[in-house]
């Protein structure tokens, strides 16, 4: 197979584009896709400071690398989740990348700062581990961005992540979630802008990017996520994609173009009644926010 752009031998085939790429042209392709998303959804404006949520996995490290290479002022934030060896190892990858690039990595350790880790905290709070983890991450990424005066939080959600979430939201016809599902969530009082610049890249592409660029990342999957529903959706979508390349992209981008504008109001309704949480000051519609509730139930269970 030859590279679509320069006819050199290809190292990666991307069937959805019906194309192969050599190493330099593939790196250029990835940067172009990210820059295109940033422009199309007005994700990051010139001169803005970005906080990248870095897990030590392929997506967040590829994102951080591409942002730095394209001249974005981007620091990393690593959250220690206390998932035994997995967290130790993923933290090492995040730190090693930051050192190699001379980039700034902010670290927050969940057990140290809040007195719980994901395995024990989720059990104590009677939440699924991925739910407690997602809630903790969303809250702490946002808080760290506000505390550090960052304009934007960037996460490594890729096309597969977004297509899988969309699939789940459609299966349940969850209009509030569908209304909120967009590559950029604008900032508002108490919320930093949140952006997903990798939505035009599949996770196979972000993994290939890391392999080709010599970025070491944690390959093993989080031990808490096995059997997770989200992974099941990804596998189902990949079955369709294998038979009909481009299906995931048309599913997701068709939604953004044609359906998202119709359901956006469902998310707006949820914003009514927001007030600052008495515990942490974050906007919430409940008496206390979901994160403070989690800390209340999970804290001290180490």
């Amino acid at each position, binding site marked *: *197979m030859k590279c679509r752009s320069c006819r050199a031998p*290809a*190292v*990666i*085939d991307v*069937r959805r584009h019906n194309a*192969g790429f050599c190493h330099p042209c593939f790196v250029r392709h990835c940067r172009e896709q990210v820059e295109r998303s940033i422009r199309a959804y007005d994700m990051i404006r010139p001169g803005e400071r970005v906080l990248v*949520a870095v*897990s030590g*996995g*392929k*997506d967040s490290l590829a994102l951080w690398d591409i942002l730095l290479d394209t001249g974005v002022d981007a620091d990393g934030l690593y959250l220690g989740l206390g998932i035994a060896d997995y967290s130790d190892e993923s933290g090492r990858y995040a730190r090693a990348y930051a050192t190699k690039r001379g980039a700034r990595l902010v670290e927050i350790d969940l057990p140290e700062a809040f007195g719980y880790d994901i395995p024990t905290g989720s059990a104590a709070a009677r939440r699924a*581990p*991925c*739910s407690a*983890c*997602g*809630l903790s*991450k969303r809250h702490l990424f946002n808080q760290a961005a506000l505390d550090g005066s960052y304009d934007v939080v960037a*996460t*490594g*959600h890729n096309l*597969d*992540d977004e297509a899988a979430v969309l699939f789940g939201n459609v299966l349940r016809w969850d209009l509030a979630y569908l209304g909120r599902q967009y590559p950029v969530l604008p900032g508002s009082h108490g919320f930093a802008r949140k952006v997903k610049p990798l939505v035009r890249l*599949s*996770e*196979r592409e*972000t*993994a*290939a990017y890391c*392999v*080709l660029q010599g970025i070491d990342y944690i*390959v*093993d*999957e*989080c031990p*808490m*996520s096995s059997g*997770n529903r*989200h*992974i099941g959706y*990804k*596998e189902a979508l*990949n*079955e369709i*994609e*294998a038979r009909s390349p481009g299906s995931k992209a048309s599913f997701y981008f068709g939604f953004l173009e044609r359906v998202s504008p119709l359901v956006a109001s469902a998310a707006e309704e949820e914003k009514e009644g927001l007030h600052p949480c008495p515990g942490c000051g974050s906007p919430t519609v409940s008496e206390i926010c979901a994160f403070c509730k989690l800390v209340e139930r999970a804290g001290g269970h180490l």
Partner: protein
Amino acid sequence: MRVLLRNPSRELDLPGPIAVSALLERLDVNRESVLVIVDGTLVTGDTSVDDTATVEVRPVISGGAR
């Protein structure tokens, strides 16, 4: 050839030469969900892998709430 697989981690010994896409079919692995790295180099589906190669089939699916 030595074939290294993950989730669970295991090693297989299979005869070559064989094209990467045929190898994945034989292993019943969806090509959308993996990268194939032959002797340390990323390769495309039409690459022929010879008998002496070491092939890593690296999953790319990550999950959970991120």
